[in-house]
């Protein structure tokens, strides 16, 4: 028995979203079970059924949560700053809309 991860698409063109996982002896039955778990109420238009062992798992904290300050890589400061600058510019222009 192997674990399979199931991704589902709710409507044509939408994103594939993780639905959950299931246990199956092989891919063929996994596809059948995926249909019953994530498609029997017509809630999906497409399923991706992936053997969990085929997934490249990336969870290394050194890679994803490095200890150095990374705030300069975030857009937050820039976006709050620019709102203020925009307000000041409007002020200078005399509120002329």
């Amino acid at each position, binding site marked *: *028995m192997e674990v399979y991860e199931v991704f589902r698409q709710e409507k044509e063109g939408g994103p594939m979203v993780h639905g959950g996982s*299931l*246990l*199956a*002896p*092989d*891919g*063929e*039955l*996994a*596809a*059948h*079970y995926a*249909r*019953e*778990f994530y498609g*029997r109420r017509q809630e999906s238009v497409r399923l991706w*059924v992936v*053997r969990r062992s085929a997934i490249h798992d990336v969870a290394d904290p050194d890679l994803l949560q490095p200890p150095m300050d990374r705030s300069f890589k975030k857009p937050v400061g820039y976006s709050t700053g620019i709102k203020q600058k925009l307000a000041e510019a409007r002020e200078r222009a005399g509120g002329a809309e």
Partner: protein
Amino acid sequence: MSAQAHPWPGAEGGAPMSALATPGTGPTGTGATGLDDDTRDALAELLLFMADDELMLGYWDSEWTGIAPLLEEDVAFSSLAQDEIGHAQALYELLADLTGEPVDRIAYGREAGGYRQAALLDHARGDWAFSIARRFLYDTADAVRLDALAGSSYAPLAGLVAKMRREERYHLAHMHAWMVRLARGGEEPRRRLATACERLWPDALAVLAPPAGERRLLDASILTQPFATCRQRWLEELAPLFEELRLPFPFRLAGAGLPGQPRRLEPTFPEPGPEGRTEHNDDFRWLWGELTSVYRSEPGATW
């Protein structure tokens, strides 16, 4: 895992789905009107056969809920069983339109002797291999029966059959997957499956035994192929799989080699008679008590 759908060999025969999208363009397009009494009775009998088949299969298979071999299969098999009960309901509704009798009374208000499912659907669920073998034999026989009704002149039936076929195709693929796995799954699963097939073959023939009014149904194009033809197709489609899986297939070719005579697969056991849908066993009488108990507690109640 293969990306394509993988029905058992031959499941892709039949008309393409697109051809079924516009069902019911036959001469009697407005339902029951236009049918003479004999034809209507013949149609009612056929609908009853099919509905009772589906209802009993649904009930027996639902008995695996909670105890199937693995959790995922438990959910899947129960869902398949629900599908069959849904098919039964839709068929009983067609029948009710025809006879004017309330649907619930048709489904649950008959005495045990009034049910007309094939002998194949009389057996209790047995072990897992038995349930799989029974369901596979039924689903494959039902598939050819549905093929013969897909182009029915009776529009309501053609329309329903188009929908049922889309579900049944997928049920069949599921059952095929299990047949292969049990047949190749080592000594015990294989032995259990072979025993079940051996036991079930004679009763499976009852599914495609012709109804009394078959001639009428053919004349009215309600049915587009005789049941004898359906049976041949069914057996011819199953023969290679049973050979490949080395499972019991108690049929032999007859009529081969004679000029102008088509070859036919005939059973090596005595041909079952028409009692295959009228004489029910104790398993069924028990099931009848179960499945009608609520209805009988207050006949005529609105649920």
